[in-house]
């Protein structure tokens, strides 16, 4: 089996890769988004803490 055969998936490449590529992209986007949200939440919590400590 050549790589081109693998990509063509017996003529069903559009359907098979359409399913796999979108699924992989969706999961990648979710991981990136959740990591960014967690970083943002940490920054927010840190800035709150600093605000309360600073005036004293």
């Amino acid at each position, binding site marked *: 089996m050549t790589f081109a055969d693998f990509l063509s998936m017996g003529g069903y490449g559009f359907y098979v890769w359409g*399913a796999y590529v*979108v*699924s992989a992209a969706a999961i990648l986007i979710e991981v990136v988004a959740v990591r960014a*949200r967690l970083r943002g939440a940490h920054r927010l919590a*840190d800035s709150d803490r600093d605000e309360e400590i600073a005036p004293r």
Partner: protein
Amino acid sequence: MSSSSINWFRFASPASFFPLARKLVPWFALPAALLAAAGLYLGLVVAPTDAQQGDAYRIIFIHVPAAWMSMFIYVVMAFWSAIALMFNTRLAAMMVQALAPTGALFTFLALWTGSLWGRPAWGTYWAWDARMTSELILLFLYFGYLALRGAIADPRRADRASAVLVLVGVINVPIIYFSVRWWNTLHQGASVSLTSAPKMAAVMLTAMLIMTLAAWLYAIAIALMRVQAIMLERERRTGWVEGFAGAAE
């Protein structure tokens, strides 16, 4: 060690669950990635071409895990919603909040991959068949949950209102599951059953189960990450977050 030596209720408080969630993430994320790699290799390279469907059937390795997870995550959300309503615990409601976007994602993927499989298998991307329609309703239930949370500013009120919504909607899950038996649907019946011998080749079944396990571990890992963000966002004015040293790293 006897089980009574660990006070499990300690972890019902966000303050003690936060560091635990943080430590647990890699223990689920890493096996999820390794199993996904193994499952993809088995499913796309090792498994033979299907005699009837050609290579189009390979969509099964994401379609079935995504569909199972879409229903399973909703049931877990219903469980935590019931706990949240009965015991009025913040953490249970936060778990519901952490699971919902991932449940919606798996529901979307089940519909998307099903649509791309339906075209070569049945000649249509979509039909208003009982299985597909009830799965679409599941997607709307996830959206409804997220929209309701977004519409209520007070998180504790949002917890209670959305818990009721999730519990009412759980009736849809058995409808999805049994739809292929109750109605004469275009969608095929269950491929895997506990009561009969598998109708699939062993390597195909193995690849599908490995991908399901990977999806399950992934869902746990991502929910544990998201719940940390939710805990920080909701409780940042409370003592335990303010006292949490080294929060940025």
